[in-house]
């Protein structure tokens, strides 16, 4: 069956360090992989999109990698800040119909 797995345990990182979150998937061949941020009681907020032919994408302190051989994406936040504390979701585009399939998210806690 098709699965998207994100680390279900909260990730605690010291302020200023780099946070790395993992998204693994099986039985998909996504054209795109996306990362979103979600704060409690709020809707997901789009952060970055990476295409299957891209290895890496950056935006300010954020970096996403995409390894279609390993079926894995890594999401990095450098120089992390307490304001980065949130749940981070990865999502894959299913087929070509633009439907997004979501991971359960990883809660990131940045400690001052």
């Amino acid at each position: 069956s098709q699965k998207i797995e994100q680390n279900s345990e909260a990730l605690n990182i010291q302020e200023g360090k780099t946070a790395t979150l993992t998204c693994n998937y099986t039985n998909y061949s996504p054209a795109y992989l996306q990362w979103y941020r979600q704060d409690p009681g709020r809707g997901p907020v789009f952060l970055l999109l990476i295409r299957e032919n891209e290895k890496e994408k950056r935006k300010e302190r954020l970096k996403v990698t995409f390894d279609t051989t390993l079926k894995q994406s890594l999401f990095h936040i450098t120089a992390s800040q307490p304001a980065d504390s949130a749940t981070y979701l990865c999502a894959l585009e299913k087929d070509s119909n633009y439907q997004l399939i979501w991971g359960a998210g990883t809660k990131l806690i940045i400690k001052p």
Partner: protein
Amino acid sequence: EPEVTQTPSHQVTQMGQEVILRCVPISNHLYFYWYRQILGQKVEFLVSFYNNEISEKSEIFDDQFSVERPDGSNFTLKIRSTKLEDSAMYFCARRTSVGGSNEQFFGPGTRLTVL
């Protein structure tokens, strides 16, 4: 680009009642989506809407659900006879029309509580 807005922010209803959740996007976007998220669980796709028609729906989106865009602006999700398990956050999202990629922009959500 601005996000969509959703009303109401919170809806409380009795089991078996009908509810209508509303999404107000920018009128020139073609792709819209409804998702739900049960408390503590992952976001689940319900239905996508393209050019005023349903383009895809999930197994969750059974006969109790319907979507409409009655006046070309508001975009509604109707649940005909609510069940306890329909309690969740319901998010409307639009797809950006730039570049053909699929980043989606979500509304603030409606929290539905079925008693």
